[in-house]
């Protein structure tokens, strides 16, 4: 389908981007906040006014756009700058719809990050924000696949970003998305209780149809909704049969397993169906958020481009890795498969 050329990523783990570091950043009260030491590319007077989702999106965007120009910007974010959104909402209620300043309002619209990048890079091309909850980033990938099919000589920025805000943590907590007990992220994957821990992050990719010098190829993507494991089983077989070239196998599964006991059956099914394939996990390092599959894609492209896989992922594979399957389910309803391959 298309090739990844530049990548950038911000999560709670600094060691993702500095592989010599082997330490794990631990969660605080079931939240894994993204590191904030990568904003050098944003002028201080601008930085001050930005919410975290916008900061993460612009910082990761800057990192790749400094290396390669693009013809358009395609982002996925379920909530965008939700912190600003609720700040504005609080003002509405507290000042009883009095005189308000528009800054929080303008920044809180989910399309603000893609728009801001467009303004900063004077990019007048295609610009869009997909916001379909746990499939927002996947729809961004489908979009860019279609764009490159229509415009094979173009290059695009595609990415995903979401933040933990105090407020969405509260709302998700009310919805039962997070664990009732305080748990260290290092224990997350062995947990037997309901809920996960909150995470945030951003990952950006410069993609086009040029094979040479690419880090990885995104070969196929499939999104679907179901609560039934039988449907998941059927979709997985179908995906493997159609997406994987004849005679090849999946060498590694990057699983979105998030320690929520209610979702274990979905993740277990995928592992069981591909029994011979080793599996690696990442949500104990990033926490759960709707566009976490963007980080999974970043990890996959790192694994494929480095001779020594990331130490934190503890990947033990005897042979070189050619094909990586990403599987994620958001709340056991929205599901996605992404097949990423070595170039």
């Amino acid at each position: 389908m298309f090739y990844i050329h530049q990548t950038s990523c911000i999560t709670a783990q600094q060691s993702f981007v500095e592989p010599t570091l082997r330490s794990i950043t631990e969660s605080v009260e079931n939240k894994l906040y993204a590191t904030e030491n990568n904003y050098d590319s944003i002028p201080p007077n601008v930085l001050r006014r930005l919410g975290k989702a916008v900061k993460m999106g612009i910082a990761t965007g800057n990192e790749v756009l400094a290396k390669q120009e693009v013809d358009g910007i395609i982002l996925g974010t379920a909530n965008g700058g939700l912190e600003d959104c609720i700040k504005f909402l609080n003002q509405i209620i507290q000042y009883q719809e009095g005189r308000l300043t528009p800054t929080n309002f303008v920044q809180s619209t989910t399309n603000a990050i893609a728009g801001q990048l467009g303004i900063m890079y004077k990019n007048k091309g295609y610009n869009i924000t997909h916001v379909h909850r746990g499939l927002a980033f996947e729809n961004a990938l489908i979009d860019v696949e279609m764009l490159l099919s229509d415009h094979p000589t173009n290059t695009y920025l595609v990415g995903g970003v979401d933040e933990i805000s105090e407020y969405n943590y509260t709302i998700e907590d009310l919805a039962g998305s997070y664990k009732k007990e305080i748990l260290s992220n290092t224990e997350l994957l062995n947990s037997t209780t309901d809920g996960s821990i909150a995470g945030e992050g951003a990952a950006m990719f410069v993609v086009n149809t040029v094979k040479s010098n690419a880090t990885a190829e995104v070969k196929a993507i499939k999104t679907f909704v179901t609560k039934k494991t039988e449907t998941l089983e059927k979709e997985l077989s179908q995906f493997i049969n159609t997406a994987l070239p004849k005679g090849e196998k999946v060498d590694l599964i990057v699983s979105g397993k998030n320690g929520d006991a209610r979702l274990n059956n979905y993740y277990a099914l995928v592992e069981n169906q591909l029994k011979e394939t080793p599996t690696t996990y990442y949500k104990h390092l990033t926490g759960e958020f709707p566009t976490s599959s963007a980080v999974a894609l970043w990890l996959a492209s790192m694994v494929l481009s480095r001779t020594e896989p990331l130490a934190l992922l503890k990947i033990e594979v005897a042979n070189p890795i050619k094909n990586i399957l990403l599987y994620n389910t958001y709340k056991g309803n929205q599901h996605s498969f992404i097949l990423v391959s070595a170039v």
Partner: protein
Amino acid sequence: MDRIVVTGIGIISAIGESVESNRLALKNSTTGIGTLELFETNYASTLPFAEIKRTNNSLKQQLNVDALNITRTSLLAQHACNQAILDSNLTKAELESADTALINGTTVGGMCLTDELYQDANRNSTTSPYVESYDLASVAIYLQELYNIQGICNTINTACSSSANAIMYGARLIHQGKAKRVIVGGVDSLAKFTINGFNALHILSSEKCKPFDQNRSGLNLGEAAAFLVLEKESDCKNKKPYAILSGYANANDAYHASALSETGDGPYEAMSTALAVARLNPNDISYINAHGTGTENNDLAESAAMIRLFNNVPPFVSTKSLTGHTLGASAAIEAVFSILALQHQELYPSANSVQPIEGTGLKPLATFQKAPVKHVMSNSFGFAGNCSSLIFSIV
């Protein structure tokens, strides 16, 4: 390339709850802008709005919805979606097929529940029925479950051009073979969030908006939903399509987070690229459904772009002078209006516009007229520079 045709349309806005009633209001220039009767806000007595005069309870009764957590946004979307599906004669099997996609554009989503969201976000309660209802995706996910749609489902937010991009994304899914039929459109309901946001930006008018008038004083917020069913022409030979979706484009103005460049670069890019996709020349366009919000900035930028693109600017209209600015729904309802103009070979007038903007000489159409209509362009421009244009053509 196979042509993409419109086989079903559905709409609810402040000027009508059906396609027919919307058309009648457009013909007679019957405005939907006026005093709020249902929505509660401090601005009810000072600002006019384009409100749909139906309570949530009455919508729920009509749609057979019991659940507490279905928002007004979802109800309006369901109302319009039901019409479009029925109009296109989609069978249950087609609706539930894996090659049917659903794409929604919205900017407010479930945030119309401003007070409930405030309570929940600030943990003022221990349980809440609404926690899954607030986000933008909640509407499409509700519709997908309601109709048991198995294909690709998506929600797009590009501010006021959201539903133009939903329509475009759906058409591209068909072109790429990722869907056989798509239900595409958009919805927004009145919300304290947008009312206060636009008010803080000082772009809400205290009178009925006057798009493209020298003395325009801002926009009026409205609420609406509209959906279209798009199919490949060769797949629906037994149907009589309304129109062809012949062109579309998305471009960015890359100028300011909440204003367009005076030269209208984004609007110009969107309009000219849509023409290129449709393989049409500017003089092929019979009629333009302009974005025309009635703000100082938009109407000037859009006029500049139209003047730059067209030797003679074709007859144009801002239907927002009747429906108000319905944000994420605006491109979808105006797509329906463009399709009606083609179907009935008629042009709808723009209200409240008296004196052309200085230096442009552009005056929107003031009276209803029958006219040959071949190609209609519909513009939608949003915050963050998100500009889109669609072109609909006669079959």
